[in-house]
């Protein structure tokens, strides 16, 4: 299997697995207990927390471990909106972990303003500046789109929010594997969400990080762990794994690896010669959203039959294919939007795998053209 769907989830990084394994066997203590095993667990957890903080430019106290990316986003969004209904602003690019949370607020009387996206796939920062008002409870801007991979103007967004004293939440779940993230460089009450499984780590662990966590209110209740924002016995193995994954993906060797990945991606795009969503903007290094003239899920199946895993830009679950709203917001024609195929490379991707995809594409393209022409 040639795996080119790293944006969906990443293959486990052996270094991360090695680091995590002892905590799944002998070092199983509960960090809240005073005995030796508990004290050891506390020390290990503190170390992991410090590692996560260091990788993302945050203070260790400002790291809230969660059960994954979606929970991190929910804690950061809903934890900001526990009082009387007010107003929030979210970008048109957000993942359902943010948009659905916002919809739940709207259902409770909150006003949700949507900041538009430009044709190149970047947030319209001018529009964001006009939308964000003093008194807003929150603004949400994704670090990079999980659909197109386009990197968003975080510094500008943070400056706008800080100027109006509005907290900013950044969903960096997709971005953390492909760009430097330093929450310490951003002004204001910023929170940032990450998840381990996009970084070579396991499912079920993530974090909300940044000075903004200090003013969040809990959305679930229990033993008071994680500043009371995420009660429940800490996932120590997961925390260790997340710290190790971030150390690798955000570390000193990361830029060289990202450059190699971007070169492979650029090579692929050039050889396939298909339109690319957000191709003119700066994108995550291994990310390509190819706009084919066919149906995305048909292409995905044909490549799957050739042992190549990629992902469709839109899902047809109920006989009513909805092109991704992000592509609609970018003004991409529906015919191309429903033909979108997401190819995402990872640190393990090889040039030979790219060759294999190009060869498979050549094999199916002719048949797909014949089928489409004969359909009318």
């Amino acid at each position: 299997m040639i795996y080119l769907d790293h944006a969906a989830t990443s293959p486990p990084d052996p270094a991360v697995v090695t680091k995590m394994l002892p905590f799944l066997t002998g070092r199983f203590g509960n960090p809240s207990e005073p005995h030796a095993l508990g004290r050891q667990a506390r020390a290990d957890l503190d170390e992991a927390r410090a590692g996560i903080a260091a990788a993302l430019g945050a203070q260790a106290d400002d790291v809230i471990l969660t059960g994954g990316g979606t929970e991190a986003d929910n804690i950061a969004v809903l934890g900001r909106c526990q009082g009387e209904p007010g107003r929030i602003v979210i970008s048109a690019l957000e993942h359902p972990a943010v948009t659905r949370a916002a919809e739940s607020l709207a259902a409770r009387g909150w006003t949700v303003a949507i900041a538009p996206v430009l044709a190149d796939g970047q947030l319209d920062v001018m529009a964001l500046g006009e939308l964000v008002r003093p008194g807003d409870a929150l603004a949400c801007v994704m670090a990079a789109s999980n659909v197109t991979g386009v990197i968003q103007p975080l510094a500008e967004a943070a400056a706008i929010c800080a100027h109006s004293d509005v907290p900013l939440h950044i969903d960096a779940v997709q971005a953390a594997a492909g760009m430097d993230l330093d929450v310490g460089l951003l002004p204001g009450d910023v929170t940032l969400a990450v998840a381990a499984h996009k970084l070579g780590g396991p499912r079920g662990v993530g974090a909300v990080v940044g000075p903004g966590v200090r003013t969040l209110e809990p959305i679930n209740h229990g033993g008071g762990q994680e500043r009371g924002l995420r009660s429940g016995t800490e996932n120590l193995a997961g925390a260790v794994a997340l710290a190790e994954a971030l150390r690798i993906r955000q570390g000193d060797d990361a830029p060289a690896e990202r450059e190699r990945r971007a070169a492979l991606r650029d090579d692929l795009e050039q050889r396939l010669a298909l339109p690319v969503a957000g191709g003119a903007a700066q994108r995550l290094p291994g990310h390509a959203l190819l706009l084919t003239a066919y149906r995305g899920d048909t292409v995905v199946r044909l490549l799957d039959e050739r042992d190549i895993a990629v992902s469709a830009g839109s899902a047809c679950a109920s006989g009513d294919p909805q092109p991704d709203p992000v592509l609609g917001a970018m003004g991409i024609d529906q015919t191309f939007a429903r033909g979108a195929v997401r190819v995402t490379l990872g640190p393990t991707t090889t040039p030979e795998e790219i060759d294999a995809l190009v060869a498979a594409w050549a094999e199916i393209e002719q048949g797909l053209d014949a089928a489409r022409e004969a359909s009318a």
Partner: protein
Amino acid sequence: MIDLSRAGTIELPDGAGSAGGGRCDDRVRFTLRLEGARLAEVRFGADACASTTAAAAWLAEAAEGRELLDAARLGLADVLAGTTIDSPECALTAVDALHAALGDAVVRGASLAADSHRVGIAMSGGVDSAMVLTGAVEEGHEAVGLTLRLWIDPSAPNPERACCAPSAVRAARDLCHAKGMPHFMLDLREDFRAAVVEPFVAGYAAGETPNPCATCNGSFRFDAIDAVASRLGCSEWRTGHYARLVERDGALLVARGADPDKDQSAMLALVDPAILARVRLPLGERIKRDVVAEAETKGLAAAKTPESQEVCFLGGGELAPFLERQGVELVPGPIVDEEGVELGTHHGAVAFTPGQRRGLGVSRGTDALHVLKVDAPANTVVVATLERLGRREVELRDVRLRVPCDRVGASFRVRAEPIPAAFEAHADGTATLLLDRDAFQVAPGQVAALYDGDCIVAAGVVAG
């Protein structure tokens, strides 16, 4: 594995058919080339999701090389057994398209050698034809389901009530496939429009009250199915009408069905006797209630589908909006009595039928008023009390005389009590009926079924 090697189009095909374009805009098209009765080549086109594309590719492979009848046995269950598909609903689009192409091949003239063992079954997707099919299969016949696709009016209030709605076609096909039998859908929408709907609309526009069911059964549906059944080598064909065939003096006559509440003999009044010779009516001796009960014990899903109704192409709707959808302009005009005194206004004279009381909205004293006459050129509806509607003398045109007769029971509506009458046929194809008592709802364009006892001995169209 989706095999795209049969993606493409056959130039000058022997059959072509498409389906799709609905909510998800999937489109599938098949083209076929026949060598004798064998599908020598099958090509498909698909602009569609993975499930639909996979189904189309699989069907092209499965159908190629098969005999036409065997290809017509391919259905959804085969697709689901033969390939991995997430969404059966999507696969249906591909099955529909293949069957459209197979039906088209038959309409274009594909023919099979005669087989005494093979019978055609006219299928509507409802319970009656399901039982006719089952009976033929139980007798050991090769039963070939034949469903005509005659009319689609998506803007009708309830298009699924039309007798040839897509779901009805699929139901008929599924029934055949469940019995391992072939099914053909014959798309005759263009012909049906020209032969039945346009005369119906034109008749109304001229102020007549045409009976499209008799026209449809009498000269269109029966002709079409008979031609197709012959071409497919069927020794006979069967339909689920509640009517019987009786031989009298060497002539084959349509007679009333055994179920007085469901008798459909009048609908068959115009059917050509030459065709009747090849038709069987297995439900003629049956009571509908018993048929439905038996269908339920046999687990026939069709037993639960709603019955299509008379004038099925109205799609469960009213006449006036249908006429407007067909381009008949309805202009408000006067409702007058026989002296010309204006009593009110109508919304379009041609949408009214002699005898009609409902929807007039006018009164004269305490008299209940009915439509006496529709004067289409003057866009005027003339009303009168019921006794003024009564008439004794009725002129007929297009008369078909099955056996010589001078006394008949005249029926102008399906299941209406026949009125005893003297009958005199003229040499020019017209005839005169002298009724023993008043008939109140006789309108030009209606079909008069003329009975002697239970048998239809003559029929004609009311001229004036």
